[in-house]
């Protein structure tokens, strides 16, 4: 079941969607969400540019994506209706707030005629309701201004949708009480609106159907919570530092869509977390490098434009061989691009965006809950190999939510760091068997040493301009990163063991790819999905996997960046690109159709 809420960016649609998500999680459905909002905080009210949407897909079965086409669309004004109705499934339910369909509302949305009456919506089950008026009536005896009363209309709407899906009101009522603890009159008004909407649905039996989605039957046993990608990254980074036996230090600068990580980590001061909101992106990474030098685990969070600014400092972390986690929550580019939309176009920037030979391991998370595991993995690689690590997420993961089966604490494997303390024979550039250098932190007697951006002698750590030494150090840094392969598993294809088509995906395209491949596989096609978490170094054993399939395709929200990387690493195979650069994720349906086409090609 997929439902989409759409309205003006001031209508509170994100909040409505998130409340629906939270309640849906508590009744035990599996779910995935996709918020879609404009870059402008307040684009002109009522215009198409100002439309904000939130889609949630929930079911009693395992869910990989926020769903393709919604079966229910809530449209709070003409702009929301006109920009969204085409996605609605034929015969789907359309709940329209007619209170926002005056002449001037239509004009703001650039409409010459009213889509509610001109036949545009034939083929859908349109439920017209003056939600503005209903909300005002419900709050008639409330001591609020007209404006404040009207602002409760999203909770009235939520109430109606709760009725439609038989959702309990209590979780949202609890949330309102907490949210407006200091303004009980607002908590009361919104609760009233919520109940009124619910009762209205029941009273009028507005919709022809009344859905009940049962609990997921085969969900693995365990403790669950609902998680969004950015929050998962925040707690994953803190957990990762702990598992390394270190304290986290985040130096960062606000940037959409990564800001939530900084905000969330700022709350975690009682977990030995220090956060510094710095003057710019460069200062963000530089404080993190300084903190790592001082013996903490330095981290910095950003998006594509910020990663570009951090480039030179990332190179400093490479040559000083300090642990550092750099998180890039990707958005549409280039330049400022599409700040609130999704893209996977920073992959090659992450791989190669530095001067000199500066290899950095790159890993990418696939879903909101996977972001936790990937953050821990980034901390492991950073500290075990004394290297900066680039962790890629994207806007789809960052703002998407899903139920997360929590790991059992005792099963989280620690990877404690051992600092150098013995002055006997100490050299800052002596290495362990993994080629990771010594980490001696300031304050340790007898281990005073200097590091920096100039090339260092492989033995003494002093500045060296020696040609052979530079070659040697370059090779060591390269070999150290490639050696990470020994510590990562070979991913296994999901679907046919061998056959006609292998779909290789990375990052957030995982869900749609998995769903599309599963559908094709069920239809009898020998197709499989291979998901790559480790982009660099690539895991061992891929060659053998590639050899089992006749064709390989790589769907990406870019112009084929992973495909290009794989093509250069595995020239014996041909990697077909499938690109989508529209600021929106792939749909399982379009992937399936494309895979079917490839299978037919001779």
């Amino acid at each position, binding site marked *: 079941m997929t439902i989409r809420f759409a309205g003006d960016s001031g209508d509170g649609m994100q909040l409505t969607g998130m409340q629906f998500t939270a309640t849906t999680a508590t009744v035990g459905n599996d779910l995935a969400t996709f918020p879609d909002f404009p870059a402008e905080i307040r684009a002109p009210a009522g215009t198409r540019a100002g439309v904000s949407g939130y889609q949630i897909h929930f079911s009693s079965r395992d869910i990989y994506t926020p769903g393709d086409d919604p079966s229910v669309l809530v449209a709070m004004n003409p702009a929301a209706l006109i920009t969204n109705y085409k996605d609605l499934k034929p015969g789907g339910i359309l709940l329209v707030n007619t209170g926002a369909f005056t002449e001037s509302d239509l004009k703001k949305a650039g409409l010459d005629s009213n889509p509610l009456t001109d036949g545009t919506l034939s083929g859908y089950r349109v439920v017209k309701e003056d939600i503005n008026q209903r909300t005002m009536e419900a709050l008639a005896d409330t001591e609020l201004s007209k404006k404040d009363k009207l602002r409760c209309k999203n909770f009235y709407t939520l109430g109606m949708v709760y009725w439609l899906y038989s959702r309990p009101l209590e979780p949202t009522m609890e949330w309102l009480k907490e949210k407006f603890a200091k303004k009980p009159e607002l908590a009361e008004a919104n609760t009233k609106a919520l109940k009124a909407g619910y009762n209205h649905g029941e009273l009028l039996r507005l919709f022809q159907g009344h859905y009940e989605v049962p609990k997921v039957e085969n969900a693995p046993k365990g403790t669950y919570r609902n998680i969004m990608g950015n929050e998962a990254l925040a707690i994953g980074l803190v957990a990762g530092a702990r598992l390394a036996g270190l304290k986290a*230090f985040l130096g960062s600068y606000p940037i959409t869509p990564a800001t939530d990580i900084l905000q969330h980590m700022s709350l975690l001061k009682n977990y030995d977390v220090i956060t510094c909101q710095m003057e710019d992106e460069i200062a963000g990474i*530089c404080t993190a490098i300084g903190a790592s030098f001082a013996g903490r685990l330095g981290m910095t969070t950003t998006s594509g434009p910020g990663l570009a600014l951090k480039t030179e400092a990332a190179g400093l972390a490479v040559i000083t061989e300090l642990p550092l986690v750099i998180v890039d929550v990707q958005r549409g580019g280039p330049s400022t691009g599409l700040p609130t939309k999704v893209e996977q176009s920073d992959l090659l920037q992450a791989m190669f965006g530095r001067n000199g030979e500066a290899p950095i391991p790159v890993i990418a998370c696939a879903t909101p809950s996977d972001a936790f595991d990937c953050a821990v993995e980034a901390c492991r690689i950073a500290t075990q190999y004394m290297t900066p690590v680039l962790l890629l997420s994207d806007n789809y993961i960052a703002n998407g939510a899903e139920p997360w089966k929590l790991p059992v604490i005792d099963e989280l494997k620690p990877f404690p760091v051992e600092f150098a303390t013995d002055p006997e024979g100490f050299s800052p550039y002596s290495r362990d068997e993994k080629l990771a250098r010594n980490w001696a932190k*300031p304050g340790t007697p007898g281990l005073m040493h200097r590091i920096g951006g100039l090339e260092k002698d492989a033995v003494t750590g002093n500045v060296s301009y020696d040609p052979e030494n530079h070659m040697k150090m370059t090779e060591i840094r390269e070999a150290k990163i490639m050696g990470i392969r020994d510590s990562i598993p070979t991913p296994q294809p999901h679907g046919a063991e061998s056959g006609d088509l292998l779909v290789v995906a990375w990052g957030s395209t995982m869900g749609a790819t998995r769903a599309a491949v599963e559908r094709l596989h069920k239809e009898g096609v020998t197709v499989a999905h291979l998901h790559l978490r480790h982009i660099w170094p690539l895991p061992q054993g891929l060659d053998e996997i590639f050899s089992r399939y006749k064709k390989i395709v790589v769907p990406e929200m870019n112009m084929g960046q992973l495909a290009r990387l794989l093509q250069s690493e595995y020239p014996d195979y041909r990697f077909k690109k499938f690109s989508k650069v529209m600021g929106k994720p792939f749909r399982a349906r379009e992937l399936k159709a494309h895979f079917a086409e490839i299978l037919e090609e001779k």
Partner: protein
Amino acid sequence: MSELQQLKAKDFKSDQEVRWCPGCGDYSILSGVQATMADMGVPQENFVIVSGIGCSSRFPYYMETYGMHSIHGRANAIATGVKVANPDLSVWVITGDGDGLSIGGNHMIHSLRRNVDMKIILFNNEIYGLTKGQYSPTTPMGQRTKTSPYGSLDAPFNPIQLALGAGATFVARTMDVNPKHMKTVLRAAAEHKGAAFVEVWQNCVIFNDGAFKSWTEKAVRDEETVNLVAGEKMIFGKDQDKGLKTDGCKIEICSAEDASVWDPTHESPGPAFVMSQLDNDPNMPRPMGVLRSVSRPTLDQQVWDQVGAVTGTKGEGSLKDLLYTKDVWEVK
């Protein structure tokens, strides 16, 4: 931490050969910092020196301390990370007029406003030395350099005024050719709790030789500069017979007897700013010494206080608390 022992300046010499040009002003600053550190009563392993890029930024390699020779302009940001991560460390930033005021100008003002407890020694030679002679943000207008062959058109920064404007709690100036004065100033900076900004007039013997000689040469120094000492009258002149008199807005030359007493702890940065304006008046001596020294909570201290306070209220969080929040549910 090792037993505190009386350290000597030579303990701070690293085994690396110093490679500045013969006659460079940097040598005397190196000696000054080594001598100052030895006297601070801080264990040697607790010193961290961070530099950016430029001639002066080679400094950490010559010091037997922990050090990082980082990237151009970013020393203040890296040092902020070091100090906040471990406030027990004595953190020093070595920078220059290009590194600290041009490419790193942003980090400079922000580390000063945040009052990170670190010592910032800015070597000002009014030229880019390492890239061989281009004008810097402190080069006087009209000066001919390799990139201003017909004269520089850029109005320069006055580093003292920039630091004051950024809200620095400690601002001082000294010169490479007066080691005694430099030691007094460095010591005052070392004792200051908070961001201490010290401008050192440093002669680049190759690309801008004599930039400050009209004020620093022994023959003219006493006439052309006035050494500001807290709580003492502002007296200058070869015979120490002249003074400066001020009403807080205006400064006049007077007899030594009538001179005003200098107070760098004034609540307002106004008097220090007025004093720094003397740089623009060819008939007045230029101020040296401590222009400003006030107390304000440091960022590093506040960060740790806040971590302590939040931990006190919420309790020390465990991994379990981090993951298993109150909104979990069970699937049985």
